[in-house]
């Protein structure tokens, strides 16, 4: 068997020196990748996945060093190879793709030269042959108009195109192994589908082996042949894809699945993994997951579990691997029965119709593009171009769309952080769009916001106490100092932070806890509506579940309404009552969450739902992803904005923007496929 293995990693241990401590970031990791095989390394942030990949290439940062182990490619040992020879292999035998296409390309070199550089280094091609080969590569990675793109600079390309160029660079020297470190994490879902499709095709065509590093189980499900789960610097489970998705046998893998938000988890709360990843600078006595494991036994805290083989090729580092696996299979059956019985969640119909809280009608936010000496407006970026929706109290409206569609601008315009160009926002019947700042202040306590990045949204130089207190001090001036302290203590308890956190600073908290602080800050002033701007997209899946549960609980307890801005359809499904899908500044479809998600009418909604990677027990054929990328909001295409990418586009679509068609009372769409007259056609 071993001659078929292309890459063999054995007992790899890498430590990082940080502030005097030795962090065991990669600890005794062994795996192997066969020829023409995609191997996925899965884990949450900070578990050592990227460092493993960098250790293979010996491209570690200065503070890190490889302590022991062996890395063999084609039987040749890499860890003891002289640097000069290894350089031929880097980019030659092994190509690498990074997460952030925006920063991985040199901004002052043309695309053609950057790819050509890899060719000059690793092949004998020179002169015109290089150019020809680069053009071939650009064609292979699906870049249209390659002659022109050859001379373009990275800033002239979109995010998806940049990632394609990165892939072309990685492939330039015909590598036999491709290491892809979170290749689609920074991309939108339709673009992600395109890139994954491209990588699958290239792998088949070129007979490459791929080491795919990701945190996204759905991506793994679509791409991988073999899966390894990493936790706290160690591999905890290795399995073939189908076995892993059908019968995960490590408690950690199982809880990752359980924490995923999705359609069938709408009614209840998501299961969470308690606690956080342990610090890696000490020695571990027992199982590293024991402290967070639901079914930990005394032996787990004492002995480090050995590899247990549960079936052919499926190995787990757990004392109770078989029991765990059996529990999963029983539990799974129960869950599916329960989901079938429960059907649609009751709350959508049973409750009395709540009052209207926020009404947005024909909201427009246009940013002028100023040019020239006098800075006259030469044109407008129509970030939001006529958006209307309502939110009732105690309900959640999810605003879904890809980056750049204007959803965040809508959120800020609702809060009057950005003033609308035209249109109206009414809060409890009061128009607030044109209120001066002073008259707006009393309303500020009703409308609050939670941001995407919990690292950037808290002032690093203020204690948690003063962060939470800021709003109370500004808006609830009637409270005395003592009352304020009481209110603060109550709120910190409400969001599940220890009361001692007041005096601590944000950097002492983990990402999930920081997001709790941000939620506490918003809650402190007693809001009725909270704009949640991608509150979980910077968090790991287990932490995401905690935050979503918290938001759901607060809604039930306090009757909060949420405007939930997100690109993640799985989150939408688990939390939202209503959904509005945005494309290039306009809402193209809106309605009840079940309606929209179950029978989407607009081709864009359909493609969003179709592009999102899903976890399937057995891989099925997928429809081809939607082509192209979102055009610029400066010059939107004539007619329907989606027409250039739409598979069903008609001549009419390129002429006129479609009007609103009511499918029925709670579902409307703007698409020529659904003409207003013939409403209610048979659903597809």
């Amino acid at each position, binding site marked *: 068997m071993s001659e078929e293995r292309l890459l063999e990693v054995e007992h790899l241990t890498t430590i990082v020196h940080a*502030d005097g401590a030795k962090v065991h970031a990669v600890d005794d990791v062994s795996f192997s990748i066969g020829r023409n095989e995609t191997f996925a390394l899965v884990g949450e942030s900070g578990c050592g996945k990227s460092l493993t990949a960098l250790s293979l290439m010996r491209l570690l940062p200065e503070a890190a060093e490889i302590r022991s182990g062996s890395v063999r490619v084609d039987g040749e040992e890499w860890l003891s190879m002289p640097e000069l020879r290894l350089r031929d292999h880097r980019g030659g035998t092994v190509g690498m793709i990074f997460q952030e296409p925006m920063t991985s390309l040199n901004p002052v070199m043309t695309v053609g030269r950057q790819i050509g550089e890899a060719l000059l280094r690793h092949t004998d091609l020179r002169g015109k042959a290089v150019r020809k080969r680069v053009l071939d590569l650009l064609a292979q990675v699906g870049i249209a108009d390659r002659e022109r793109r050859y001379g373009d600079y990275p800033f002239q390309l979109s995010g998806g195109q940049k990632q394609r160029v990165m892939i072309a660079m990685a492939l330039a020297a015909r590598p036999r192994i491709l290491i892809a470190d979170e290749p689609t994490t920074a991309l939108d879902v339709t673009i992600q589908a395109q890139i994954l499709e491209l990588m699958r095709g290239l792998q088949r065509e070129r007979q490459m082996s791929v080491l795919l590093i990701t945190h996204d189980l759905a991506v793994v499900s679509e791409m991988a042949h073999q899966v390894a789960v990493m936790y706290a610097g160690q591999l905890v489970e290795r399995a073939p894809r189908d076995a892993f998705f059908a019968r995960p046998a490590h408690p950690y893998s199982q809880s990752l699945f359980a924490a995923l938000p999705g359609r069938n988890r709408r009614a209840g709360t998501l299961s969470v993994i308690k606690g956080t990843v342990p610090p890696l600078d000490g020695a571990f006595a027992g199982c590293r997951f024991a402290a967070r494991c639901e079914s930990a036994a005394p032996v787990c805290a004492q002995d480090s579990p050995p590899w247990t083989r549960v079936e052919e090729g499926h190995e787990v580092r757990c004392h109770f691997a078989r029991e765990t696996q059996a529990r999963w299979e029983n539990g799974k059956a129960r869950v599916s029965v329960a989901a079938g019985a429960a059907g649609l969640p009751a709350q959508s119909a049973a409750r009395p119709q709540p009052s209207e809280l926020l009404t947005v009608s024909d909201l427009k936010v246009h940013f002028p593009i100023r040019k020239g000496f006098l800075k006259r407006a030469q044109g407008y970026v129509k970030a939001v171009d006529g958006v209307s929706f309502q939110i009732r109290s105690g309900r959640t409206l999810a605003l879904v769309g890809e980056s750049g569609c204007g959803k965040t601008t809508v959120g*800020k315009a609702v*809060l009057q*952080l950005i003033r609308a160009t035209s249109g109206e926002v009414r809060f409890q019947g009061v128009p607030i769009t044109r209120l001066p*700042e002073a008259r*707006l*202040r009393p309303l*500020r306590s009703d*409308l*609050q*916001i939670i*941001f*995407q*990045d919990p*690292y*950037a*949204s*808290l*002032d*690093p*130089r*203020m204690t948690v106490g003063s*962060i939470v207190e*800021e*709003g109370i001090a*500004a*808006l609830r001036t009637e409270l005395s100092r003592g009352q304020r302290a009481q209110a603060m203590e109550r709120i910190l308890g409400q969001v599940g932070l220890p009361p001692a956190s007041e005096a601590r*600073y944000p*950097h*002492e908290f983990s990402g999930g806890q920081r997001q709790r602080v*941000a939620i506490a*800050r*918003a809650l402190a*002033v007693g809001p009725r509506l909270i704009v949640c701007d991608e509150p979980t997209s910077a968090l790991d899946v287990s932490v995401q579940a905690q935050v979503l549960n918290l938001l759901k609980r607060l809604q039930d307890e306090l009757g909060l309404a949420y405007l939930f801005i997100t690109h993640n359809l799985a989150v939408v499904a688990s939390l939202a009552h209503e959904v509005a899908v945005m494309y290039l500044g306009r809402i193209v479809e809106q309605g009840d969450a079940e309606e929209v998600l179950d029978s989407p009418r607009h081709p864009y909604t359909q493609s969003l739902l179709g592009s999102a990677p899903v976890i399937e027990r057995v891989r099925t054929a997928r429809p081809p992803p939607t082509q192209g990328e979102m055009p610029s909001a400066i010059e939107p295409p004539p007619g329907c904005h989606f027409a250039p990418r739409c598979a069903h586009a008609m001549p009419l679509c390129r002429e006129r923007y479609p009007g609103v068609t009511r499918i029925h009372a709670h579902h409307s769409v703007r698409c020529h496929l659904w003409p207003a007259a013939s409403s209610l056609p048979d659903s597809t």
Partner: protein
Amino acid sequence: MPLSFSFWGHAWSVEWVVLWTDALLYVLIVAAVLLALYIRRHPPLQRPWSRVVRSPMAMGAAVILAAYAAIGLLDSVHVRLPIAPVKGSTVRYYSPELLSVFDLIAGPLRTHTEYSYSAPFATRLYTQETVRLPDGQTRREYPRLKYGGAGLKSAAELGGDVCARVARALAEAGAAWLVAAAALTWRLARRHRCAVWQMALRCLRGDTQVPWRTIGLTFGVVLALGWSAGALCTHYHILGTDEVGRDVFYLSLKSVRTGLVIGTVTTLVMLPFALALGISAGYFRGWVDDVVQYVYTTLNSIPGVLLIAAAVLILQSYMDRHAGLYDTVAARADMRLLFLCLILGITSWTGLCRLLRGETLKLCEADYIQAARAFGVGHGRIITRHILPNVMHIVLISVVLDFSSLVLAEAVLSYVGVGVDPSTISWGNMINSARLEMARQPAVWWPLASAFIFMFALVLSANLFADVVREALDPRTKGRGGER
């Protein structure tokens, strides 16, 4: 303000005079102390500073800077001594001559003036003079100095005398150092709850977080040099004398204050401009931003030296026309020094202002500022609570980096002739007069060399200190720990 007190049995009665630059220096010290207290109470601000305190290089430099600061501060408390009263009169008059506490301490240095140039440790003048002999004849010779080596019978005793004095001074300095080190070790041992000898061993091995070994070593060197110089300078002109016979060592020490004033007061002048304009440009944008940008772009495009020269010359002619405005020469010179600080400040705020504008533009997009705006927090509070603390590191970095370049700028400007008043003792003026001294034959090299050595030590230690501060505070350098 007249002050009366008794000291060592003498009844002193002096008039305390606060010059403008003195007042500003006092304000600066109070501000620095308040800032230090503020930083101590806020751990996120304190963290980078603890890195500075742990750096041996920074602390070594800090000891030297502290020595300079001590001299400068003693030289910044000015008094006027009483003139012996006329018999029978009860009115007390004060001398028009303004003296600082440093002058009083260094009394002999100030009063021991010779006739003209004399080399370091010389017993005779550097130039030949015509002396009238008792018998009426005249002769050309190098006359004996009035004070330099006055107690010596012949020049041959010079070496032995100097060695003896240095040896004694070193012994005394060593004893003083031991006492100080023992006191410190005892305190450290109390704080760390361990035996004194263990603490001493740890200090010697360099096994302490704060680099006490380096601090002790630097302090020892400074003490030894200072003590020896102090012991010698009452009997010799250790760095020679200048053209009118003033002791060059005294001049070099007096220049310290001028350098410190220029380096620090200028920042005090510059900071309000840079902070107010930079932050408001970045925060309010729109026309405010346009105006501020136009102002600093315009100011930047005028050569600094030209602007300074014009301003100083205007002030000069104004002072000449209104000679009665100042009651002492020192007050007048001080006014010019202050004005130089002002004009240097006005021409140098643009760089920091631009940095602050950019940083504020970036910060305004930060989510926590957006969150504060969503709470309806006012502009003033957002600026003081969120923006100011988050740009403070830039301010501190640029202040410590600017200090040394300002000290050097003073030298350059005085050399060109548009710097401080000619009567103000400064390194710049010493270098300016060296123009002629180096041109004569044989050359007079010691005033230039002294100014160079003193300025070099100050600027070098300031630069070393600034380097560490920049590294610790700059968020771009690695290891800010915790913040992402």
